[in-house]
């Protein structure tokens, strides 16, 4: 009894303490809210004109980005940008870039967003720091009005169809970076082996066509596992080659067949024979030593092993002009050969593969919008962000192309994340017409018949959580050939069913049917 009383008293004290806190935070958020609305109301008319003469107080702009992590000399670049904006546009901001690596970015942003931290801009995408999830959580600001009032140039710089692709429930929540939009799966192979074993690359149409070649390589080099696979999995890199387009995440059940004409949502794990074929192939290859046994536990996309020559071939999702230089560096500078495994295809999530969104917690959304406007339209600013300060962080060669040096403290290599890539300087080794080519691919690619459809997952959150756990258990071992698909795949699909995959697919179908009825 005594103990109970004590607990009760303590509990009461806790409640009291908590309630005072409630009072505090409530009033502060209310104030914050009021401020926000005042600012947005007064922007377009009064503020801008007064700012022409007086830059006003310095406004901090916090920008969260992914990439290879923080850059050593980022402060110098930020200062240079602040100075440039003040001199050129009379815009007084204090830019703060917070970069983290890809692997931890989603988790980090979930912390930032859940805790209600005050920041202005963050990078988001369909495949990292999920755009739709964040919009559903009400983490981002609607940009429709802000775009009109504070970023007319940005609004005009992109085709309306691109803006349409970013809409969720009819509203724009992110600024897409102009870059290559369609995907085209490819395999890249060390040229030395292609030449040595006289592989006729024209005859290779699908992955299995490479089997004999890989077997020959393996026979002569028992230490080499020709085909690279890692814990990142292969599905995201081969879904077009396998023949499907995901509706909400590459592994989540619910896809559209790329070669069909109907609007039927399929469960790729049960309805797509080509996926089973792919699993069978991987299992066979693993048994033959073409894929390493413990691929599912290899991190970093297996790039260190590719560099070291332990693998001689790797697949990737998006072929784009200029990728040759990147892949060659992945292969330790050796020459490489590309073989396409699918057509160029504009999927419904292509348009949300890299966006910058303005946070709901931002105190100065209109300044953030103006800043994004300039990032996407002002070449000097964009190049400062991409490459740093000329002469300090990079030099230009005779052709006017950028030579970056990792040792100089700023080479984030995230041009496509920051903004309109067509405004960027070219890197050494990139062809002069790389952006022309990119634009052409953007225009000519096969367009998905569900382009612009976005799935709202709120009704099936519980099912998605359970399905995610099952996918994590089975998908990777299947993709890397660690387990026999004949026995494991049915176990997997049973588990998906138990977790509610049918309900997810039914919900997708309902939403897609409604979308088709409204848009087609």
């Amino acid at each position, binding site marked *: 009894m005594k103990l109970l009383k004590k607990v009760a008293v303590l509990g009461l004290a806790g409640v009291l303490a*908590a309630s005072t806190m409630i009072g505090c935070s409530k009033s502060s958020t209310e104030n914050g809210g009021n401020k926000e609305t005042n600012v947005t109301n007064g922007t377009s008319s009064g503020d801008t004109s007064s700012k022409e003469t007086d830059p006003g107080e310095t406004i901090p702009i916090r920008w969260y980005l992914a990439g290879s992590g923080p850059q050593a000399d980022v402060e110098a670049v930020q200062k240079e940008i602040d100075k440039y904006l003040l001199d050129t546009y009379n815009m007084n901001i204090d830019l703060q870039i917070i970069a983290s690596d890809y692997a931890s970015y989603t*988790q980090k942003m979930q912390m930032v967003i859940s805790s209600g931290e005050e920041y202005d801009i963050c990078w988001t995408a369909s495949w990292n720091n999920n755009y739709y999830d964040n919009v559903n959580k*009400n983490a981002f600001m609607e940009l429709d009005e802000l775009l009109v009032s504070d970023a007319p140039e940005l609004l005009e710089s992109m085709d309306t169809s691109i803006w349409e692709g970013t809409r969720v429930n009819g509203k724009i929540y992110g600024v897409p970076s102009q870059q290559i939009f369609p995907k085209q799966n490819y395999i890249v192979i060390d040229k030395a082996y292609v030449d040595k074993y006289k592989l006729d690359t024209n005859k290779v149409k699908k992955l299995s066509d490479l089997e004999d070649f890989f077997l020959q390589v393996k026979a002569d080099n028992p230490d080499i596992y020709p085909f690279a696979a890692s814990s990142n999995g292969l599905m995201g890199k081969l879904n077009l080659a396998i023949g499907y387009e995901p509706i909400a995440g590459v592994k989540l059940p619910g896809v559209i067949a790329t070669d069909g004409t109907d609007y039927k949502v399929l469960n790729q794990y049960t309805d797509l024979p080509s996926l089973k074929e792919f699993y069978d192939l991987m299992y066979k290859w693993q048994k033959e030593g073409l894929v390493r046994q413990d691929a599912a*536990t290899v991190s970093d996309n297996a790039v260190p092993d590719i560099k070291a020559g332990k693998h001689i071939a790797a697949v990737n999702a998006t072929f784009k002009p200029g990728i040759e230089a990147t892949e060659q560096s992945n292969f330790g500078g050796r020459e490489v050969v590309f073989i396409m495994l699918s057509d160029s295809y504009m999927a419904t999530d292509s348009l949300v593969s890299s966006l910058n969104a303005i946070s709901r917690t931002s105190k100065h959304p209109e300044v953030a919008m103006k800043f994004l406007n300039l990032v996407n339209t002002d070449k000097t600013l964009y190049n400062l962000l991409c490459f740093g300060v000329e002469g300090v962080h990079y030099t230009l060669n005779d052709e006017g192309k950028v030579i970056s040096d990792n040792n100089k403290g700023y080479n984030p290599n995230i041009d496509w994340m920051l903004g309109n890539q067509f405004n960027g300087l070219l890197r050494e080794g990139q062809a002069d017409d790389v952006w022309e080519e990119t634009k052409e691919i953007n225009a000519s690619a096969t367009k998905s018949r569900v382009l612009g459809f976005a799935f709202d997952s709120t009704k099936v*959150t519980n099912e998605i959580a359970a399905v995610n756990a099952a996918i994590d258990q089975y998908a*990777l071992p299947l993709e890397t050939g660690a387990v026999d698909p004949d026995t494991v795949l049915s176990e997997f699909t049973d588990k998906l069913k138990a977790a509610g995959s049918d309900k997810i697919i039914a919900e997708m179908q309902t939403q897609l049917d409604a979308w088709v009825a409204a848009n087609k």
Partner: protein
Amino acid sequence: MASKIKKPVLASKGRKKNRMNWGLFLLAIPGLFFLVGYYYIPLFGLIIPFKKMDVAKGIFRSDWCGFDNFKFFFQSPDVWTVTRNTIGLNVLFIVITLTVSVLVALGLYEMSKKKVKLFQTCFFVPYFISWVVASYIVYALLSPDLGVIPNILEKLGMSVPNFYNEPKYWTAILILSYIWKHVGYNALIFYATLVGMDSALHEAAAIDGASKFQRIKYICLPYLMPIIVLMGVLMIGKIFYADFGMFYFLPRNSGTLYPVTDVIDTYVFRMLRVMGNIGMSSAVGLYQSAVGFILVLITNMIVKKRNEDYALF
């Protein structure tokens, strides 16, 4: 029980002692702040599992949603497996770690001071090694290509299993790793207790002709019992929590091992890491704490019934 002792003390020493001792209170202030700040104020977070979190509205103004956040966990098909793994492995850990630690402590007690230093250090070092590092040590031992054990097995002409693909070995691997990491720390606590024991007891027993084994059985073990029970009860309180670092890093997140290595913490992490739903994750946290709390109460009750002096409260 506490009141039974307190009353006579108060009566004998008079009223003065019952007054506030401001000097001592001053010393306690930092600790109290810590306690209130880190253990009591965060309790308001207990409302999060019952809210449909909306970042724009904040914690307090988000809409209530009843038990919706709990549904996903109890609905999922793996609840039984992960709960079984969590409790089963933790029970094994508790029993085996306590037994081995007591044995190690008894062994240390019989050793000379110099030897104790050496052994104690060797046992204690793993406690400071993080699971991330430990996972690489295990990987160096077990990896199919370069691992020490597969290579030895191959040299001996035995068939080599791919450890990261075969669930059957992992219960043993997990237990061994846990012992390796935690025995040193627990043994030190038991050893410290033993050192505090009055040596006259042993001398008297020796004179009376008690063998070493008898001395351990009738003197050391009863002396250690309250500490063993205390450690046991504290460990049981955490029985619903799995050491996330261990279960996530040691098996290198290999899907085929999940039937054996998947515990509540890793399972929930996998379900929610992509979605980052704070309401759902706190719901599981609340569930784990509630069950842990109940288990501590029950264990304490049982202990109290057996021997009142050993009980925690």
